[in-house]
């Protein structure tokens, strides 16, 4: 296992260099000039423009700009934002917990509902439940996410007034940032009163929870549909395998055949898909974060691209890529745990 991990880590190096190259050139290929954007609409003298270019190092050839950037990166310095003048690294990790909290809740919801739904659909193939489930999965997958989010807001926040419309927590609560996860920090902060009736429960934790519900549902919709469909098709394939016939020939009860013999094999392709989904979620759910004013990295990246904030865009992209690589590594390890054929080779 250690060898496996080391060899996987070795492949990180070329991927990492590739990512820095792409993020570095991507923002520079875009039309627009950060100095003009910073200066605003008012005119600027040519001397001042040249001075600013020299100050930010844009007068240097691209190769030496990349070299400077990479020496900084290897020393843990991703530069400072042109706009906020704060280190990119600090900004990223101030916002990332919000994205991580939302993504983890969304993917957990998608897994908890999607896998059982796919399994039940597969064992009831062609029956009503299967058809209903697969049609709704298709609807969920094809629905424009911003429209779906607005519908949810109108229904739950507007009509029913069950949930708040935006943000992470009500303004009346303020407490220390310990983990960056609102659900955990608000519990640590105390002052929560628990009630058997959900609408009477009060305190920062319940405020955070009620803010989280709608974005989680919206963000989980597509992953849920993908996981349910993938689980169903993987289960159907596995249920036709010879070893399932062997398991039935042993006289095992159907539940054991489904959950012990079939599900574990069917999980192999599903885990790959979940890994890919987590990767995209971590990159920031731009639409969901924008609609719910969720202070995560998706919104931050989009804003920075508009501002031509070079250090933020290239640094942010790189950090996101590193997160995705870490997720992929985790998926590979999980793969080995589930599939003995991979573990040994």
């Amino acid at each position: 296992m250690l060898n496996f991990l080391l060899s996987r880590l070795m492949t990180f190096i070329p991927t990492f260099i590739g990512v820095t190259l792409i993020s570095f050139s991507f923002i520079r290929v875009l039309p627009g000039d950060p100095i003009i954007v910073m200066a605003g609409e008012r005119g600027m003298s040519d001397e001042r423009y040249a001075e600013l270019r020299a100050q930010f190092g844009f007068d240097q050839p691209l190769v030496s700009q990349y070299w400077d950037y990479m020496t900084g990166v290897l020393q843990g310095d991703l530069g400072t934002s042109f706009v906020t003048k704060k280190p990119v690294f600090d900004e990223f990790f101030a916002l990332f917990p919000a994205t991580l909290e939302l993504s983890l809740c969304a993917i957990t919801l998608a897994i908890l509902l999607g896998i059982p739904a796919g399994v039940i659909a597969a064992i009831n193939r062609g029956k009503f439940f299967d058809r209903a489930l697969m049609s709704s999965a298709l609807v969920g997958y094809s629905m424009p996410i911003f429209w779906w989010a607005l519908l949810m807001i109108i229904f739950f926040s507007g009509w029913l007034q069950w949930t708040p419309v935006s943000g992470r927590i009500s303004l009346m609560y303020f407490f220390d940032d310990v983990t960056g996860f609102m659900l955990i920090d608000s519990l640590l902060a105390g002052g929560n009163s628990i009630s058997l009736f959900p609408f009477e429960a009060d305190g920062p934790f319940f405020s955070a929870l009620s803010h989280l519900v709608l974005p989680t549902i919206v963000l989980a919709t597509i992953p849920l549909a993908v996981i349910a469909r993938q689980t169903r098709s993987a289960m159907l394939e596995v249920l036709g395998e010879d070893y399932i016939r062997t398991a039935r020939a042993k006289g095992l009860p159907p539940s054991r055949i489904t959950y012990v013999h079939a599900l574990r094999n069917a999980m192999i392709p599903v885990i790959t898909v979940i890994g890919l989904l987590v990767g995209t979620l971590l990159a920031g759910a731009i639409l969901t974060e924008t609609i719910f004013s969720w202070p995560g990295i998706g919104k931050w990246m989009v804003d920075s691209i508009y501002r031509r904030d070079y250090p933020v865009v290239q640094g942010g992209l790189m950090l996101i890529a590193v997160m995705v690589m870490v997720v992929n590594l985790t998926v590979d390890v999980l793969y080995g745990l589930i599939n003995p054929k991979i573990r040994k080779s």
Partner: protein
Amino acid sequence: MALLEVRNLSVDFETTSGRFRAVDGFDLTLDPGDITAVVGESGSGKSVAFLAMMGLLPWTATITSDVMKFDGNDLRSITPRSRRQIIGKDMSMIFQEPMTSLNPCYTVGFQIKEALRIHLGMDRKARHARAIELFEQVGIPAPETRLSTFPHQMSGGMNQRVMIAMAIACKPKMLIADEPTTALDVTIQAQILELLTSLQEETGMALVLITHDMGVVAETAQQVSVQYAGQKCEQQEVTALFERPHHPYTAALLAALPERATTKHLPTIPGVVPGQFDRPKGCMFAPRCSIATELCHTTPPPVGGAEIGFARCHTPINLKAEEEA
């Protein structure tokens, strides 16, 4: 009382292009300790008949029969729950492809012990001891370490031994071996057959050998039932069948055995087993039969008596009277 009694078993499959009769009027009686071979080409319905008895056919199959009894249980009306208490315990089955018949995610030990727990309710220690004993019985070296290996780490022959160990784990009264050696090397084939017959001798279980290999039949079986296009065309005791086949199909199969060939070119049976759409009106074998008459092409033949091996034929061959004349 017979251990297994099956009369007029038919299996139909609902397909998108209509009904397909895979097994047509299958009969078999098996006493405890019998070794019977069921022989036939691919598509003759031999596996399907036994999968029907095990209850392992997909829901698209319709199974009908006059009698289908195993060990006093009526398999036609049995509930799925009671059937699960019989299969894998008193009636067990091994399959053609050992490499794909074992679950790749679990160790072979897990897969054997599972059956012991479900059917015999043994505790952990007893299961482990019994699994080792079974591995020794089927000739797997170093059983203690082999229990914790995965199917992909072993050869096809070893995996088939694991399958056999699993099938005999609960001391079954009948073991169905569905082409157990087809996917294996020739040298391994002989070993597996030897293992099966020696286990049969040791335990006294009934053994059904489904095969298309007449050589396998000659070496192992006592009774032979020859299947063609879903129908049984002949059933005889093994030596009698080889000496005096009554159905032209049996005779043609035997003539195609390399060791029986008398000419330089191996005789073959022209044509193929009829499929779903080209079923003949009369005898199923008529289009490929060298001695078919007009009657054979128009009318399905009746099932003959014991003296002609129950041959389903209008023109049975090798009759006693013929030879005496």
